[in-house]
């Protein structure tokens, strides 16, 4: 597959966008062990090639009876909704998006762990206004559970969307996007599907990889959506070469 398109629009994502005035880490100190506020400088992949700079949408409520329901068709139906295709533009930090989401009463954590009924949850549709946040991960794996709980926007039964920009100085052939995610996830480059991780996934470095890709010189939007039921949620993403070694020669931007 050759990804010939190289585009990033700098326009704001939503009419609801408002400039953020409060640093997210200061507002939610629980995020501090896992995330930092991005600098204005371009970031490079870490020493193992992992991408740590992301725009993360606040969790989309998606109650489910457990992670085993995340088969391929479920993933496509619920994650591949067209949200990052067509006239999709890179969101800015603080942009907001409004959508209808499935809502379930908060999980009962009184016993110290969630009760797992293994039945389809009873949900109602509600309107939610969710915010994009620009963050750098302090770890190679982006801790979505900590992001959700730390921002007091969710815990279990959620979909997290993640977007970043890959700025490639020259064509790079025969690379693969390699992902580990907890739980299932789906990934796109410039809106084209490149990878799906279905099932009750654990976050494993290089758990699955795309077909060989050519990253053309220029900017590319890398986006993903991770769905989780109960339990920890996180992901790690990098590009690898033909031998499984990390690809390092590109910059990572969030705008």
């Amino acid at each position, binding site marked *: 597959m050759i990804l010939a398109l190289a585009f990033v629009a700098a326009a704001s994502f939503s009419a609801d966008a408002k400039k953020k005035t409060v640093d997210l880490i200061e507002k939610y100190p629980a995020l501090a062990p896992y995330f930092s506020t991005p600098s204005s400088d371009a970031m490079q992949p870490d020493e193992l090639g992992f991408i740590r700079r992301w725009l993360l949408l606040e969790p989309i409520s998606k109650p489910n009876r457990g992670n*085993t329901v995340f088969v*391929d068709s479920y993933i496509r139906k619920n994650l591949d909704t067209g949200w990052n295709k067509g006239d999709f533009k890179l969101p800015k930090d603080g942009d907001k998006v409004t959508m209808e989401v499935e809502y379930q009463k908060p999980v009962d954590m009184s016993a110290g762990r969630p009760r797992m009924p293994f039945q389809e949850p009873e949900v109602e549709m509600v309107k939610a206004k969710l915010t994009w946040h620009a963050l750098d991960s302090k770890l190679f794996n982006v801790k979505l559970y900590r992001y959700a709980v730390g921002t007091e926007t969710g815990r279990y039964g959620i979909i997290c969307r993640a977007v970043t920009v890959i700025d490639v100085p020259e064509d790079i052939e025969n690379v693969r996007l390699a992902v580990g995610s907890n739980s299932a996830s789906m990934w796109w480059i410039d809106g084209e599907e490149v990878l799906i991780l279905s*099932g009750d996934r654990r976050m494993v470095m290089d758990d*699955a990889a795309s077909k*060989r890709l050519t990253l053309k010189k220029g900017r590319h939007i890398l986006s993903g959506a991770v769905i989780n039921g109960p339990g920890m949620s996180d992901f790690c993403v990098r590009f*690898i070469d033909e031998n499984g070694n990390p690809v390092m020669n590109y910059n990572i931007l969030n705008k």
Partner: protein
Amino acid sequence: MKTSMKIFSLAAFALISVSALAQEGQPWIHDPSTIMECDGKYYTFGTGGGGLISEDGWNWYGGAVRPGGGAAPDAMKIGDRYLIAYSATGGGLGGGHAGRVLTMWNKTLDPNSPDFAYTEAIEVAASEMDEDCDAIDAGLFMDPQTGRLWCTYGTYFGFIRIVELDPKTGARVEGNEAVNVAIDCEATTVIYRNGWYYLLGTHGTCCDGVNSTYNIVVGRSRSVTGPYLDNMGRDMVAGGGKMVIDGDDRQFGAGHFGRYIEDEGVEKMSFHWEADLDRSARSVLAIRPIIWVNDWPVAGDPFKAGTYEISSVRRGYALELAVDFVRQNIARRGGWRMDPNEPIVVHPNQTLEEVIGTWPEGEIPARVGDWMNRPHQRWVITAVPEAGGYLGGQYYKIQIEGTQKSLAAAEGAEVVVTPEYTGAPEQLWRIEQLIDGSYRIMPKAVPGCDCQYVLTSIADSTPTLAKWDFNSDNCKWNFIRKQ
């Protein structure tokens, strides 16, 4: 009539089963030399003159030419020439033991080549009528550490000896004295690996058809001239030897070892069966993988068709169709809720009929995932005799059990599962056991790519096709038999 038909069918099945395990064509030979490759063909010479030729390493026919008659030749390529050693033998066990080991050269092994011409044979070793050695059964060895050329020879009548030859002339190094390295065995040869010299020899009864107990044993040494000790510390001069291969279910009398290094991590051994019950009890050429266990060589098994889990060495996940996982509707029975007096129920495994309707109609990607013995993970591997073969093996089709869905190489050097089997080369797979006991799986062809790629785990859950690398578990697979 029905009974006859049943018997016929059983016989046919037996033949089909056999054909999946043994060299095809007319692989009749006794005391085969180490297999040589020359201009894209394989050659081996035998006792009495002549030998076999194969274009693919699987189908073998007569046609090789070696003058001089005599017994048990060996062959080695040195530079751009082939050195052939053979023996003008005495009378065998009951006869005299005056033997002569001779060497000669040829630029090619192809008898149809204008360059095909043997040099005059020269004597490099000999035995007198009644000394403790019988100078036959030559085995050639080029020491990769020193570049020195050696030749072992001898039989049950006394010692096995090693002498040094000049790799430029094939003649005995002047002044070289023979060294005794083993006793009372035959068909010796030396190989080298990981700092060890290995002396392989054949014990047991020769030349008695189905009653031959011929078997190949080995000892090892840090020096090419020995002492060669077996796994019990016994010197081969004292009769020591660790088993490499003996009889099989239908073939007996393994003798005359030859090593062929096909690729890094892919080694094969040639030998003969004194008798193959499925082929008129004839003496036939055999080729098996070599497995190295704790720095000892042992014979691997020929790949057998059947139903398998194909497990990646990288993670241990199983090759599968990338389709929805279908849950089995069997109630969870947590131990803490169990009625101990409730009758035990045996549940069936999930069946193909229960899930196939959920699978897409067309081409489906391949994936690697947790083994659950589900229909999308069970592969039937079937030999395809008409597709030819490779050294020691034939091509297979790999299909989801109960379907025609076939594993195939695809454009871009990726791997998919096609809805039907067409016999196209991208649907044919070469399956070779590696020196560590695992396997490499290689398509006969990759569409749009003139490359010899192997099935590879580029990620834990993602198969692809890539260059062979023995040092990476990505390229290795295990076959776990299910039926």
